């Protein structure tokens, strides 16, 4: 069995860590653990953010406490847009470079982005019910967001239905590029769409003048927090993909060795 030696080697490289140590969050094997640090920072930010939203931000004069969901809803929506921008950029990079890391970044960003935008839609509906007395209105902004959601769900579907990983990557890249171009077109085209325009509170075309100073600070802090959360989750998802790829690599070499051994007279 010539293959045995080389098979065992990669297995031993993945050290199984039985004990969790807090110091591992900062440094592992003498190197800074970037992901761990970011997790710590994000965790602290989120706690502070909760305090800011519920204790610091003033209660809205008209809408009352329900308005506080705004500090989740708006950052989630904006940060998911950042995630889709990352999908777009990573997809272009993948098309030109054909390096797996770009595809992993695109895939991870799309997955997290879909989670975020789903939460943004849900929080939006929860907010809309008491304010507009309806879960949903077909306003341009909501419609745009729903289209965005559909496009990136389609992105995930196209990947999972593709016949091979390399095809999944390139189909995903295609959708990542077209989808984003489409979003830009949609964003501007809905500005001309006749219908109810709810006063845009944030976003590139927004008017933030109506916001109280403290409210705006809390909102900005919340955005920062969710941006950190997004970055952390994407890194974690990519690390997971790395592990999956390693595992695949091991299985790959095992299969290869098995088939090689089966040949007589080699």
């Amino acid at each position, binding site marked *: 069995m010539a293959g045995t030696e080389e098979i065992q080697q990669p297995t031993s490289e993945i050290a199984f860590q039985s004990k969790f140590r807090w110091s591992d969050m900062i440094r592992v094997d003498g190197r800074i653990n970037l992901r761990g640090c970011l997790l710590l920072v994000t965790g602290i930010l989120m706690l502070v953010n909760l305090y800011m939203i519920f204790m610091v931000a003033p209660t809205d004069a008209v809408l009352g406490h329900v308005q506080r969901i705004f500090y989740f809803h708006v950052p989630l929506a904006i940060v998911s847009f950042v995630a889709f921008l990352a999908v777009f950029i990573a997809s272009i990079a993948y*098309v030109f470079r054909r390096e797996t890391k770009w595809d992993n970044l695109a895939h991870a960003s799309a997955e997290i982005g879909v989670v975020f935008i789903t939460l943004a839609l849900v929080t939006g509906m929860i907010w809309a019910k008491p304010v507009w007395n309806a879960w949903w209105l077909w306003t341009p902004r909501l419609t745009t967001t729903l*289209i965005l959601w*559909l*496009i990136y769900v*389609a992105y995930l*579907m*196209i990947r999972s*239905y*593709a*016949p091979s990983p*390399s*095809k999944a990557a*390139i*189909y995903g*890249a*295609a*959708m990542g*590029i*077209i*989808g984003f*171009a*489409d979003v830009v*077109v*949609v964003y501007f*085209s*809905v500005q*001309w*769409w*006749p219908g109810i325009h709810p006063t845009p509170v944030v976003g590139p075309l927004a008017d933030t003048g109506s916001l109280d100073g403290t409210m705006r600070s809390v909102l900005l802090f919340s955005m920062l927090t969710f941006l950190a959360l997004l970055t952390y989750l994407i890194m974690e998802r990519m690390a997971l993909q790395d592990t999956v790829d390693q595992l695949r690599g091991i299985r790959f070499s095992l299969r290869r060795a098995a088939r090689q051994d089966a040949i007589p007279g080699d």
Partner: protein
Amino acid sequence: MNEFLRPIGVLLWKDILIELRSRDLVVSLLVFGLVVVVVFNFALNATPELVTEVTPGILWVAFAFAGVLAMNRAFVREKEEGGLDGLLLSPISRDSIFFGKAAASFIFMLLVEAVLLPIFAGLLNFSPASFTLILTIVLATLGFSVVGTLFSAISVQTRSREILLPVLFFPVILPVLVGAVESTKQALGGDTVVGLGHWLPLLGAFDALFLVICHWIFSIVVEE
């Protein structure tokens, strides 16, 4: 002849020839379009006033769904006996394949729409003789066929191809659909809100943008 245009013509002629022989696509799309209109009339229980309100919507839902069917058919037909492999094996540029297939879909859909439009006009009681309307139909159909050709080339390679194509196609095509509906409203003399004049240029801009992006991505996707 030009090395770029010649293969497009060859592909187009092949699709036309197949269609002349089988007649399955155009005829079934016509019937399908009529069915959509009838179903909508029942579903909306349309009164004459409502009909004028929803006519553009019905028109474009019928065209869009017929379009998806046409796109799907165009590539399934290629896939059946490996024609797509045959195409990819031939030494013509991938751009030519894209434009050849897109042109075929464009022409078939225009043909179907040209027949359906007077019928719809009669059923829904509007006048089809409007330059804006015809230009809208041409521009929107161009967008449909460009985006649809790319996505059917992708979806035909996957499992559950019939489901995947509309799932990919509709979200991306929505700006065209919105533009087409609004522009049609204007053409049929419905709303006269300021700013509706944007829609035709928007359709044109969309077509140009997606023509560039889709044909670039197509060559990458089919070479993989």
